[in-house]
């Protein structure tokens, strides 16, 4: 992928990520998060991870964010009322975030090994979906079964939690 396209998608993703945090209306935040995930899927595809890019769009931008929107509309949340700011918490949060960004830049510019361009990959007969599938169903078949059990437990838990009274 050309470098210009990479930076366009990064700026796109970060802009909508910031919009998630600064929007007062929860529905607008959720829609910004969908667009942010679309930019992230484009970055996955730029890293030759086509399967994960498609999964990101289907699962996150599709299923998970629809669930978020559904809950926001179910609870009928209005735009947040402007309350008095807790100044100490606000100040502390901004200081922690600024320090985190500083550490991030220090680490990224101190890591010489990461300044190399990505090595070329061969075009093979099978695409990356085939490769991930083979790893998933041969090498990682037990974790896959455990994930299946986890999803069943999570859905049972969600049904149980949304019952009106717990027995």
């Amino acid at each position, binding site marked *: 992928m050309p470098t210009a396209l990479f930076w366009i998608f990064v700026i796109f993703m970060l802009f909508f990520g910031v919009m998630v945090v600064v929007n007062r209306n*929860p529905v607008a935040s959720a829609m910004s998060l969908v667009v942010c995930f679309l930019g992230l899927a484009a970055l996955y595809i730029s890293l030759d*991870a086509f399967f994960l890019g498609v999964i990101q769009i289907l699962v996150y931008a599709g299923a998970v964010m629809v669930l*978020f929107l559904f809950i926001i509309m179910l609870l009928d949340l209005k735009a947040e009322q402007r309350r008095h700011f807790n100044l100490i918490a606000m100040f502390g949060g901004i200081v922690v975030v600024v320090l985190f960004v500083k550490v991030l830049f220090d680490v990224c510019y101190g890591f010489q090994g990461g300044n190399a361009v990505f090595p070329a990959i061969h075009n093979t007969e099978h695409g990356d979906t085939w490769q991930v599938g083979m790893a998933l169903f041969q090498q990682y078949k037990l974790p896959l079964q455990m994930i299946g059990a986890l999803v069943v437990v999570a859905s049972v838990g969600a049904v149980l939690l949304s019952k009106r009274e717990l027995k």
Partner: protein
Amino acid sequence: MATLNDYLLASGLLFTVGFAGVLLRRNIIIIFMALELMLNAANLSLVGFSRFHTHAGLPDYNAQVLVFFIITVAAAEVTVGLAVIVALFRAKQTTHIEDLNSLKF
């Protein structure tokens, strides 16, 4: 060409945006969305390392399988988390975290 450091920087900045959201926002659903942002930032760096660490001319697919598992677990986590938020809203009629202080010392 974009280098690995560029991808790590993008991932770290996305994580920072999510982190700032968790620290600065007061609506519990927005905090939950910011948590999702942080999770996806970690996934981006995993995919970057997967592409960087080639093995016999192919990316390291073990990392991509890990990302696949993380996405699945995150979907399960969102289901349970939103059910908890709905239960909380039924009990307290609010999603503002300053009103949810029963466990505060």
